[in-house]
């Protein structure tokens, strides 16, 4: 069997459903793959490790990929895990922020620190506010706590399937402004990236085929698949993951290997307009279809 090292973007959570299920149900093994899954604490590490040849595949975020490529990391998107944005502009449901326009003069927390400021700029412009209408605060590890404790008035970078449930369980209702409804082009929240110089397309194709199978199983058998997922670790069997599981299912990419050229061209153009990238990389330099002959 071929050994594959896969780095997740963060800790194991329902977003990684297809990967975990494929592993548990033996779909990887059926593709003659032996997958070693590593969960890092900092989501900016995995793409670097792939670029440095220390891992074969990494789960990363589409917006990040555009920036990485401009910084010269030898990376390409090879597949999709979550095919829609999960990102929210999250506020308190019973707070004073009824629309993003109410954020004028307020603080907005963010975490990863890549494109959040640009995203926020687009959302503000969409709501008729200038880019510098809010103060951006990096809150790193604590998106929902900083919001719940009132340190910031909104956070960007929280996921609609996860942080929203987390707040509800803590007894604080949150409200999500979906970014794609506020002036942002739609994008793939979670993607697989590989090293453009050394990748083995055949192996990746087999990997994606296994996750595709797992996705089908999840959609066909939501409860059984939850059991499979939850059985892998004691820490996963809790209320939050159970709720997030249900909310994540409709977001999994049904065709992980499928390539949407327009999506990547549009987002590249968006980043260029926001002056986050100096020029526009052609889509062929961002993503490929590993199943193409």
């Amino acid at each position, binding site marked *: 069997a071929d050994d594959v090292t896969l780095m997740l973007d963060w*800790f194991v959570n329902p977003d990684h459903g297809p990967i975990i299920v494929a592993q548990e149900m033996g779909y990887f093994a059926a593709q003659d793959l032996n997958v070693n899954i590593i969960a890092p604490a900092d989501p900016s590490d995995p793409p670097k490790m792939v670029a440095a040849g220390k891992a074969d595949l990494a789960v990363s975020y589409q917006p990040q990929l555009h920036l990485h490529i401009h910084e010269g990391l030898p990376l390409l998107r090879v597949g999709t895990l979550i095919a829609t944005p999960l990102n929210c502009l999250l506020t308190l449901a019973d707070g004073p922020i009824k629309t993003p326009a109410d954020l004028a003069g307020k603080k907005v927390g963010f975490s990863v620190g890549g494109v959040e400021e640009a995203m926020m700029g687009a959302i503000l412009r969409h709501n008729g506010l200038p880019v510098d209408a809010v103060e951006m605060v990096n809150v790193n590890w604590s998106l929902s706590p900083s919001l719940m404790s009132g340190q910031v008035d909104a956070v960007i970078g929280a996921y609609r399937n996860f942080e929203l449930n987390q707040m509800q369980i803590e007894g604080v209702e949150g409200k999500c402004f979906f970014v794609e409804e506020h002036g942002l082009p739609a994008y793939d929240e979670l993607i697989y990236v590989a090293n453009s110089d050394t990748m083995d397309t055949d192996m990746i194709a087999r990997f994606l085929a296994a996750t595709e199978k797992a996705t089908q199983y999840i959609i066909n058998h939501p409860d059984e698949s939850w059991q499979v997922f939850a059985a892998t670790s004691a*820490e996963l069997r809790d209320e939050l993951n159970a709720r997030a599981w249900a909310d994540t299912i409709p977001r999994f990419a049904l065709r992980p290997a499928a390539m949407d050229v327009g999506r990547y061209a549009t987002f590249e153009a968006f980043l260029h307009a926001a002056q986050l990238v100096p020029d526009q990389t052609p889509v062929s330099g961002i993503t490929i279809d590993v199943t193409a002959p």
Partner: protein
Amino acid sequence: MRARDIALAVLLGLASWQGLVMLTGAPHFILPAPWRVAQAAYHSRAVIAENASVTAIEVLLGLVLGTLLGVVTAIQLALSKTAERLLLPVLVFTQAVPVFALAPLLTLWFGYGMGSKVVMAVLIIYFPVTAAFHDGLTRVDQGLRDLAVTMGAGKYRFMRHVQIPNALPGLGTGLKLAAVYAPIGAVIGEWVGASKGLGYLMLLANGRAKIDLMFASLIVLAVLTVALHITVGHLADRLTRYATGAAELNP
């Protein structure tokens, strides 16, 4: 006696913690009350124990290696004025770079296993041990220096028979600091990338907003550290007593 003191200290700590919770009214997802944490700890005792043992091994390895490295460096610096002039600023410089920023580098070189955590613990204690020991090595009484000069001491022998014994109390101080920092190093290493250890457990718990489990891991880590500090403190006392010649007095 000693045990009663510790028990009292623990009670004091718990009381002030509970007081803090009640006083500030901090919500449980930011600062859970002691009782809640105790429940979480009991509930997850197996997981915590497993991860704690991993961290403990990393810490001990890091402490031993870091001390050795620090001792050797301090001796080198004290032996050669040139080394001291050139290397000491470099040393401070490297120490000034938060190890966190170097984490990807370390994982690149040492992988996701125990190696990178031990290296991180070593890096973090290296400086305090080196600095404290070096201070002791260079602060030798002028009279003893004079004596050694007239006796025709070689610099290595002067190091071995005078400077090193003279620096043992300083080394003790350094070791006591190291005992506190080594666990932090290991945990930072685990934060960067791990699938085991208290640091991993803490981040995992934090990422899942299980703040009570996070605090439970934190407490276990702190207990581990205090135990280490007490042990190393005894060792440091012996070093000081040896160097001041009082070794036989309190056996």
